């Protein structure tokens, strides 16, 4: 796997030229922001002045002029930002993915479909708003992988009938073909009940009718972090071997909140990330290495899942 040093030299040799060009564009757009602010102030001032009734003609001219300036500036900013974003994705993110592995394809506007998201059964609620971008797909060794950013939301309605949207899942959704053959369903979910209520939590989990049966495993660290539900007790253990459990615990340490499910011969992994990834910066410099490094680290995290979960070991009957 590529090291940070290798990435640094790749950054110097392949990315800085594009990033410098993008930085010029960004600066051009950022310069227009104060004009937008002035325009808005002028517009408000003009309207307030017009309402006060003193020199209404002057104020209405001020308001209209400010409005025109604001609109022109916003159109210009959008006109710069759109191709800038496209160029960033095509020439920075795509290059970074190619640097990690030549067998991966990248589609900036693609994302994991809602059907697949639902089929993973990690989330019981269905999404009322579903968007995503930055789809990466391809083969890493023997394993085919797909991942993208997703933002899914559901809404609740209060007594007045107003809708409030809540995040169902935001982050990276990863799908890989699993190295063992299985027919049932196994879900490895974040264990909130047990960590909050202890034994009582386990009882609550057992009574959870919307999930298959609770599977109690032997690894105490794993059990503390995750609640496992499965349609087949033996199959759940066939997938979650002691080695796999410690791999998942280690993976969780790297990522933070993570849930997995094993079904349809695949492993589905939902990694919570609050930030919007793989987007060009606007108020920060394009040449900020830390930001590019952060995106790179997230890509490495996804690509490494295959190694972390040992998915390329194909010694069982599944090819």
């Amino acid at each position, binding site marked *: 796997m590529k090291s940070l040093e290798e990435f640094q030299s790749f950054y110097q040799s392949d990315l800085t030229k594009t990033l410098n060009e993008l930085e010029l564009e960004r600066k051009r757009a950022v310069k227009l922001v104060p004009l937008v602010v002035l325009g808005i102030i002028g517009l408000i001032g003009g309207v307030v002045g017009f309402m006060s009734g003193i020199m209404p003609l002057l104020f209405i001219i001020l308001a209209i002029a400010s409005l025109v300036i604001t609109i022109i500036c916003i159109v210009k900013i959008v006109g710069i930002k759109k191709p800038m974003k496209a160029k960033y994705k095509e020439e920075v993110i795509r290059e970074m993915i190619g640097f990690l592995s030549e067998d991966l394809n990248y589609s900036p506007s693609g994302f994991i479909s809602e059907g697949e998201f639902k089929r993973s059964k990690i989330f019981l609620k269905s999404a009322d708003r579903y968007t995503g971008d930055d789809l990466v797909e391809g083969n890493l060794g023997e394993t085919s992988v797909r991942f993208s950013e997703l933002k899914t939301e559901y809404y609740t309605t209060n007594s007045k009938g107003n809708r409030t949207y809540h995040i169902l899942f935001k982050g990276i959704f990863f799908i890989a073909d699993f190295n*063992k*053959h299985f027919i049932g369903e196994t879900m490895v979910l974040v264990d909130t009940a047990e960590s909050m209520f202890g034994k009582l939590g386990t009882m609550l989990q057992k009574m959870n009718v919307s999930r298959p049966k609770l599977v*109690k*495993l*032997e690894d105490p660290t794993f059990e503390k972090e995750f609640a496992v539900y499965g349609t087949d*007790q*033996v*199959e*759940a*253990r*066939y997938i979650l*071997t*002691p*080695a796999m459990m410690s791999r998942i615990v280690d993976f969780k340490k790297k990522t933070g909140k993570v849930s997995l499910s094993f079904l349809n011969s695949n492993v589905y992994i939902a990694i919570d990330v609050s930030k919007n990834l793989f987007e060009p910066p606007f108020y920060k410099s394009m040449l900020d290495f830390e930001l590019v490094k952060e995106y790179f680290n997230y890509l490495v995290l996804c690509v490494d899942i295959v190694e972390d979960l*040992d998915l390329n*070991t*194909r*010694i*069982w*009957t599944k090819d």
Partner: protein
Amino acid sequence: MIIGLSVTGFILLVFILIYNSLIGRKNQVENAFSSIDVYLKKRSDLIPSLVGAVKGYMDHEKELLMEITELRSQANAHSEYSNDRIETENKITESIGKVFIAVESYPDLKASENVLMLQRSINEIEAQLSASRRAFNASVTNYNNGVEKFPNSIVASMMSYKRRQVFTLPLAERAQMDQTPEINL
């Protein structure tokens, strides 16, 4: 009178609940037990194919192959799950391991599609066996908790339910299980 009746009713209800939960736990153990048996049977079915695939090549390991065949018929003779059976099955695991180590010194065999497929199938069954052993142990622990905890223990002793043993592997075999076997494809 009414108080007496309701107390008796309550005790009866608790008794029925505990009785049923114990039966449930016992059946779960038996069910988990049978899944181990399924995989042992599958493995046993693969042994003749394994011996058939390698015996033409292996001149020096004739004894090892004879031993495996012998162990297989011994294991099949014990239909019940006794300590003898466990011991025989453990010996089979060991002998199969030896056969695959021996395969390494025969390049023709090592490259044979048939042997590779058998090796994959046996790996699969071993992994399934290990999983079903763990599932069995989890059900035994659940059953033992049911039998030993108060007040279940009173009902359990009336039903003459006793604590059961969990499945343990000999140390050498456990070390073998913890490692991922290497196969060069």
